[in-house]
């Protein structure tokens, strides 16, 4: 089981802030493919990966990063702090 967290417009498009899923995905990209196939709202949220960022266990990562041992995956748009 892995915890998925969504922030900003990713959260709004998917309609929930977090969920726990069972996945056999080996990488973030494979996980995204599984999510896209679930429902239209996921397909919309993950339509353009260039407008998304991902963090694995609270550290920024790339979409080709492996998921082995990861407990928390967060998806969000580019950050706009400051």
């Amino acid at each position, binding site marked *: 089981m892995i915890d998925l*967290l969504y*922030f*900003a*417009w990713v959260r709004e498009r998917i309609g929930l802030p977090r969920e726990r899923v069972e996945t056999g995905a080996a990488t973030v990209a494979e996980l995204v493919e599984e999510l896209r196939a679930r429902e239209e709202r996921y397909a919309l949220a993950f339509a353009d990966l260039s407008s998304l960022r991902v*963090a694995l266990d*609270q*550290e*920024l990562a790339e979409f080709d990063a492996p998921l082995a041992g990861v407990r928390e995956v*967060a998806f*969000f*748009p*580019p*950050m*706009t*702090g*400051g």
Partner: protein
Amino acid sequence: MRVLVQAAPFDFGAEAQAFADGAAGAGAIVTFTGLVRDLSGALTAMEIEHYPGMTERAIAAIAEEARQRWHLIDALAIHRHGRLRPAEPIMMVATAAVHRAEAFAAAEFLMDYLKSRAPFWKKEVTAQGADWVAARDADEAALGRW
């Protein structure tokens, strides 16, 4: 080093004074305070979302890098989240060093990295609705100078 992520307002004058009082040996204190901008005149609020846990970790890592690179005596970062009104302070950074060049450079570095590497997202609320603020290419490009 102090990192505060909070919904409550802060008094940047009092924070700057307390920071300076604690920075023994400093010859230079630089502070920066960011306010909620309302360029259109139509803004009713700015809503700031963040990723609890990662936010504190990311800012602490950025501040620690600044401390090491510019030999800072101390550093402070405060960033608010939640619903803010126009002109309210959103965030501040303060740096203390022996000389001003290090204090200025470290403060700019902290600002550049806070904008693009700390997990905050701003949403502008007007009478017409609410829109997420898009990240600017210039903000990402600013990281290249460090």
